[in-house]
């Protein structure tokens, strides 16, 4: 844990690390795009900001479990970079990826439902905050292992190349990931095999609670890939237009010339690493300094100054973002928890028949094949219900075992209160009023991550 001393040293180094002059922090570097594009960009950044704020609140109310990594402060980097992608390009990200999914167009309802662990979540409640995924929009996931997604993204680029498409992938990582072995391995292979991939380092100045200059000997991260044959550039991660311009150029190079590129976006995360972060490694003043460069305020101010929008129009966009987030929260709250019988779904792809034991369920004395959970006896189901009751969330009706049915029948999930054929479930649902027990306030002091 950093002492106050270390924090003040960090402040000194800070002045150098962001490379303010070189990148031209806060300077106007690019002309504004057309009004419609400006609206899209500002709306997306506002949506991410408001969504993340709400997610933080929902975490405090224990609606969201596990770890929650918010990207507040990084919106310009996320939106600037993803706006550079073609619809057919792929995107991979780290575990701090709610913003990436939203920017790519994943419905906020599905993202919030995933954070709530509900069946309508974009990963059906299996992945949670760190593992969002949206195949349809070619958002290939958030990944919980630092540096773990780098080889995957190179593999996607290899497939783009192998299949002779024009598609490319934008592969995002944090500053901490540049210290992983996969970083060097992946840079080498991407350059060696001339793959259509752009690596984007979202340098938010900290690998969890360790400041950049305390975790990396080389603090200009754009240099770290060059020795492997992947040229790097830096951009102002608080300037959505700068990120967009630099990533667009890099993607062009990767796609058209088959020269993989690396971009370092220098930015800052306002909130802790996760919600369980007491932030003893930095000063309030430092956070305040960065907040003054706020990417959303800066962009909105410029739009007003240059007469693209009025202040009222900006406020309206923000109000719209809040409405979308209200609706996402409502949707997530109403979405059921996943069916307990679905526990073993999607561990394997089964072709025509299942001739052997693929998974073994040993939770009860009635040992059975996990893939036949739906046909297991009464005791396994009783015990599954008892186990699920420890969650202390949702109502009994939402957790009820449902009759075996086609798992692919999406959109046909019963909502709460619709299980009218099940008297017992109904009775329990009524007894518990609105369904949700009163949310406990979360103790944020414990836990890593």
């Amino acid at each position: 844990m950093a002492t106050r001393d270390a924090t003040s040293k960090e402040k000194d180094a800070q002045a150098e690390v962001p490379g303010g002059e070189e990148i031209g922090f806060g300077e106007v570097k690019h002309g504004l795009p057309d009004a419609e594009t400006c609206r899209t960009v500002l709306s997306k950044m506002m949506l991410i900001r408001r969504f993340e704020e709400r997610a933080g609140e929902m975490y405090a109310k224990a609606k969201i479990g596990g770890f929650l990594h918010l990207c507040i402060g990084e919106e310009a980097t996320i939106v600037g970079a993803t706006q550079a992608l073609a619809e057919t390009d792929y995107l991979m990200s780290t575990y701090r990826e709610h913003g990436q999914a939203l920017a790519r167009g994943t419905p906020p309802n599905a993202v919030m439902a995933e954070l709530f662990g509900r069946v309508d979540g974009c990963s059906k409640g299996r992945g949670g905050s760190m593992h969002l995924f949206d195949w349809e929009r070619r958002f290939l996931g958030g990944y919980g292992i630092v540096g773990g997604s780098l080889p995957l993204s190179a593999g996607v680029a290899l497939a783009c190349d192998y299949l002779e498409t024009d598609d490319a992938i934008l592969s995002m990582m944090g500053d901490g990931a540049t210290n992983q072995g996969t970083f060097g391995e992946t840079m080498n292979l991407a350059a060696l095999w001339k793959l259509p991939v752009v690596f984007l380092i979202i340098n938010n100045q900290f690998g969890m609670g360790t400041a950049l200059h305390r975790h990396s000997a080389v603090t200009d991260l754009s240099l770290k890939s060059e020795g492997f044959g992947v040229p790097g550039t830096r951009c102002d991660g608080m300037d959505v237009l700068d990120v967009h311009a630099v990533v667009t150029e890099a993607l062009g190079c990767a796609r058209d010339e088959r020269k993989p590129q690396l971009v370092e976006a220098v930015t800052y995360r306002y909130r802790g690493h996760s919600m369980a972060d007491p932030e003893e490694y930095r000063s309030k003043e430092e956070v305040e300094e960065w907040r003054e460069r706020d990417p959303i305020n800066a962009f909105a101010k410029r739009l007003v100054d240059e007469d693209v929008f009025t202040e009222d129009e900006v406020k309206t966009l923000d109000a719209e973002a809040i409405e979308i987030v209200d609706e996402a929260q409502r949707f997530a709250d109403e979405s059921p928890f996943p069916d307990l019988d679905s526990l073993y779904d999607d561990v394997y792809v089964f072709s025509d028949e299942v001739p052997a034991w693929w998974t073994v369920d040993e939770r009860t004395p009635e040992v059975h094949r996990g893939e036949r959970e739906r046909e297991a006896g009464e005791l396994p189901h009783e015990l599954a219900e008892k186990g699920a009751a420890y969650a202390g969330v949702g109502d009994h009706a939402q957790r009820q075992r449902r009759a075996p049915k086609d798992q692919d029948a999406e959109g046909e999930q019963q909502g709460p209160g619709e299980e009218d054929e099940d008297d017992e479930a109904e009775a329990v649902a009524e007894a518990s009023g609105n369904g949700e027990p009163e949310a406990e306030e979360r103790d944020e002091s414990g836990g890593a991550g």
Partner: protein
Amino acid sequence: MAVMRYREALNQALREEMEADEQVFLMGEDIGVFQGAFKVTAGLLEEFGEKRVRDTPISENTIVGMGVGSAMIGLRPVVELMTVNFSLLAMDQIVNHAAAIRYMFGGQVKVPLVVRMPQGAGHQLGPTHSHCFEAFYLHVPGLLVAVPSTPADAKGLLKAAIRDDNPVIFIEHETLYGQRGEVPENGGPLRFGEAAIRREGDDVTVIGISRMAITAQKAADVLAEEHEIEAEVIDPRTLRPLDLDTILESVEKTNRAVIVEEGWPHGGVGANLAALIQEQAFDYLDAPVQRVTGADVPMPYSKPLEQAAFPHEEHVVHAALATFRDL
């Protein structure tokens, strides 16, 4: 039926599947120009070119991870790792990604990846190149695990692995590469989860894993000739999915079971099978299930020590006889 070596059977499986499906390609260290550390990929670079037979740097974690990524969007990669010990460098990609991705993303993608690797002692390769880790991979839901012991199975199961939509850990054995055997045109079983009964018998069930399936058969011959005991020898061939029903049927007939593996005893395949057998066939057992495993040590280099550290038929014979002790 053609007679060929285990390595040739694997080579044929790769060639045939590459001919049948353009999306099948190979990646690995020294599999191309060098033709493979154990020559399994001999001739394939020449036949299919560099796009489909890719020599890689020594970067196991990244090679496997790239296999996973490319499989997610439609390719069917076959990654060769030089030994099972080197696969430990790729454990993150295998366990955290290959095995988990379909599940953690709610079934939106599949990962049709094959990771091939040889294991086993006998060549004096010492403590970093000689182990048997099928138990590690068996442990992980989301992975399929194949442990072929004959040329026919090597061919059939590798073809099945490549066609399968799940990630497969395909574990070959270093001392089997030169073994000859009859191979039907399409190889042995074309699907996972079917055990082979190598020898029928009524007195004791002996289950052999990987090369130990062969050791078990040799032991069965000794048991018949010298002890008038007829052993039923079962080779599960794949550990996930596991043909537990064939094993249980046999145990219900013989009332005795011996499990033979080359890996370590704690948390091993035998520990797992013994638990499953006693849970589901306890009433049929006339004796405790016996395990024969490799020694609980890192594999030593010195030849006599190495040979003493993994099971031979003598060990299996004694274990089988122990199930006939008066209780």
